[in-house]
């Protein structure tokens, strides 16, 4: 399974965003040999927070404290929503498997539990989410209890303002203070970048000097918040050192994307899938995908590999995302699926893609466009039949969902990947037995 020359795999995952990474991870955990094609760059836009389902229905913007209750409501009221096709037990298993793998790759999460949590954003608003990195979990508690709390930022780091957060929340959180400090060693640098600070803080000396600058400002603070720059590859170690040095709970607040938590997530997922023997072609794109008969294999022709490459796989998982992931392409007339040219469920004309009001609470029809699937997660062709027996589609490319407004991006990716990989395993077993 780990032979470098192997060019034939059980499953080829196209896409390396949240859904593609999840599919590759779950496939490898099931012992399937797997190749993954595509850049994980999209993950850099992630905040590290794992949403499951926060809002339902979208038009009412109803927030749920229990994601599983929200899922049950979704299943009743929108049965064609992809998340409605996955049972709660599978979703629990999928999330547990996912965060366990991340923890093993050096990115620990707070225990998931059954409830959504509220997290501070870098502009002082509150976001509802489900999975919270351990480095941010003290912020959830602080936001709930609102004790005396200090927010720290660094002069020159333009993407994060403790002042702004405190100004937004100050009225409902009287104990919230903010302080701006100089980042050690960068006193004359006009502009700072989060990832560079994160790397710098992995050096013990910079860390100690930062802690020493914050300590006199603590006062009666019972918790301290920082922009999410506390380490990159060794974030756990840096966070622990800050808590030990300051003697109070320390939490990170995600900065604007692309952010350090996004870099951490990308790094941890890359490490997790690679450690499980997944072959990665992270600079490649799929030029062509062809199928050899009904029960045969798929052949992927790759671009972006020196000299090109051909890969054969018994099953294909399409996790190519929407427009920014380039899984869907839109032109003046219509939206098309970019690799196989699969039919895309979409509004009949371009005039009906969007509402008149950009911020219309019910969202836009184009955002719910996507691939239709059968019960086994196989995208349908123009006749409503599976396009090929072992092509599966997961993540945001699926129709009938508006993950941004539902706050269900990670949940959609992880849960559908889990369910589809389950189908992949089944299908391959059937083929092997037959």
């Amino acid at each position, binding site marked *: 399974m780990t032979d470098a020359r192997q060019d034939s795999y059980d499953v080829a995952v196209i896409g390396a965003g949240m859904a593609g990474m999840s599919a590759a991870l779950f496939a490898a955990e099931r012992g399937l040999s797997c190749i993954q094609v595509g850049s994980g*760059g*999209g993950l850099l*836009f992630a905040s590290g927070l794992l949403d499951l389902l926060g809002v339902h229905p979208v038009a009412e913007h109803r927030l749920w404290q229990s994601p599983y209750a929200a899922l049950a409501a979704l299943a009743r009221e929108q049965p064609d929503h992809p998340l409605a096709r996955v049972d709660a037990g599978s979703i629990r298993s999928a999330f547990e498997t996912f965060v366990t793998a991340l923890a093993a790759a050096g990115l620990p999460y707070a225990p998931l539990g059954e409830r959504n949590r509220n997290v501070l954003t870098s502009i002082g608003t509150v976001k509802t989410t489900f999975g919270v990195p351990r480095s941010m979990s003290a912020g959830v508690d602080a936001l709930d209890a609102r004790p005396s709390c200090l927010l720290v930022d660094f002069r020159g780091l333009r993407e994060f303002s403790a002042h702004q957060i405190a100004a937004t929340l100050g009225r409902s959180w009287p104990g919230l203070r903010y302080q701006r400090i100089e980042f050690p060693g960068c006193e*004359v*640098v*006009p502009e700072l*970048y989060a990832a560079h600070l994160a790397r710098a803080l992995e050096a013990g000396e910079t860390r100690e000097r930062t802690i020493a600058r914050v300590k006199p400002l603590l006062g009666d603070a019972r918790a301290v918040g920082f922009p999410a720059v506390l380490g990159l590859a060794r974030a756990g170690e840096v966070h622990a050192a800050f808590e030990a040095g300051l003697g109070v709970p320390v939490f990170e607040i995600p900065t604007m994307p692309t952010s350090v938590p996004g870099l951490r997530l990308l790094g941890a997922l890359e490490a997790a899938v690679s450690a499980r023997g997944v072959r990665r072609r992270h600079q490649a794109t799929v030029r062509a995908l062809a199928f050899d008969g009904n029960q045969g294999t798929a052949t992927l022709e790759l671009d972006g590999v020196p000299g090109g490459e051909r890969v054969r796989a018994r099953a294909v998982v399409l996790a190519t995302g929407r427009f920014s992931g380039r899984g869907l392409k839109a032109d003046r007339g219509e939206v098309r699926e970019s690799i196989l040219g699969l039919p895309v469920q979409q509004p009949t004309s371009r005039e009906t893609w969007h509402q008149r009001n950009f911020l219309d609470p019910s969202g836009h029809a184009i955002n719910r466009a996507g691939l239709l699937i059968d019960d086994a997660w196989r995208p349908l062709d123009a006749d409503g039949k599976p396009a090929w027996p072992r092509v599966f589609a997961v993540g945001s490319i699926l129709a009938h969902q508006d993950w941004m407004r539902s706050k269900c991006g990670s949940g959609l990716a992880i849960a559908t990947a889990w369910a589809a990989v389950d189908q992949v395993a089944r299908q391959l077993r059937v083929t092997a037995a037959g």
Partner: protein
Amino acid sequence: MLFQTALYASLALCVLGLVWRFSVWFRVRIGPDARDVTPAQRLAAVFRGATSALFSRRMFHVLAAFFLDVLLLRRLFAQARLRWLGHLLILVGFTLLLLMHALAPLVTAKLFQGYQSTLDPYLFLRDLFGAMVLIGVALLLIGRWRRRSGLPQARRSIDAAFVALLAFALVTGFLLEAHKIASPRAFYRMADQFIGATDAEKLEPLRAFWASEFGVAFDDLSGPIDANMVEQGRQLHRDACAFCHAKPASAFVSYPVARVLAPVTGLLDDARADAWLLYLHVFACLLGLASLPFTMFFHVVAAPISLLVNSAAVNRDFSAQSFSSEARASRRALALDACVRCGICDLRCSVAPIARYLGNPGLLPAHKLITTGALACGLLPRSGHEDEALRAADGAFLCTDCGRCTSRCPVGLDLEDLWEAGRGDLAAAGLPAPAQWLQARPALAWAESLEPGPWQHALSDAEATFAPLAADRGTFSRCVQCQTCTNVCPVVAHSIDPEHGVDLTPQRVMNLLRLGLRDLTLGSRMVWDCATCYQCQENCPEGIRVADIMCELRGLAVRRLGAVRGWREVS
């Protein structure tokens, strides 16, 4: 008398030339660190170094180098077998020819009693040695032809003339010998001297024998020769000639030539070919002797010395650090002379494709060695040759210091040390590296002098071919300004000094490109400080070739300005 005078004159020229070339090793200053060292200090340092090596264990390294590197050409063997064979043939053939043939009265005659050039084995050996040199030269020429890469090879016309002279001396030598074998005139002269030419009774059988067995081309002897006559002649030959004459067939090159020349031997005899061939042969050899120190064939002296000097280095990696700065200065000058212009470095050079692309052979090591020498001797830059200096500077600063030239050099020259010194000299001569002068001004100031009018948004056709990524909006239009490139950039991360740090971050460079303000980026420190680590390109979520674009922008800036013009603008 004429020969003697010519010989002494040539010898004197040769010795003067050698002294001059040796003196260069102590006079020429290459590199900034050589500037404050006097010739006397250098001479003393070399003397000190040589004595300390002589009386230490390093002497064994020197001895090993002498046998393996100097005599057996070990380093060339590792690089090119055919050339090694050719070179070894020349080395052995020429040395033995010199000792046995040219210096016969001094060497061979003293060592071997009864030496006669017309006796075996000397007769055979002379042809053998001559043939070895000829074959060797042919092999090297074939090798040179096979290696032609489209770029001019580093050589001077005087060196080519010297090769022609060497070949000419060999050919005239063979012709002279061939003519003497076939010449009736030479036969009669010898016959007259040893048996009395008037005695027809003796002369006829001897003629018959020499015509049939020794290939003398008598024009009055035709048709089958009487066997009895030949037998009589053999007796006479045994008594009078055999002491000095073996069968010329053992001169395996000249004898067949003599047979070919037989029909015209009479004509040649009448034209006194023996005399003028001798003159041509001797004067060619003497001219070679006199001019040797002034050609690159001086390497027959310099290359062995260079090999031995390097073998005496304290550090076994032969690095420049093994030598004092005084000795280093001399070692560089010695390297200039020891280069054999074999061009192996050019073939292995990492930037050779760039040299081909730019059409500037000044990038290639063998060429660069010549310009480094010219620069040190004050021959560059000179008025009327600014272009040459500019090309030399371009070449010097495009070198990546990969060290392949040094590791492959069959003479073991420390070329990296030479390049570093040469760059120092270029900077001192007013030709520093583009990155140096480009940083003297902010990007905005450069943008103004890079373009005559308002900043051009489109590249000219020539520039677009040269910089296809920068010319194509599709390359960077997908940029969403997410700042990932800046976040992962180690140059930005280490840029903690606003005075000299980066001015534009990578994502700002991309943004200027998107806005069509490309010329604003050309002189920016970000573009010129880029370490080409490719982190930006690897991590870009939109798959934009950020690092490749940076490279193009640097090339574009240099192309627009030219190194000399750009530097003059800031100086």
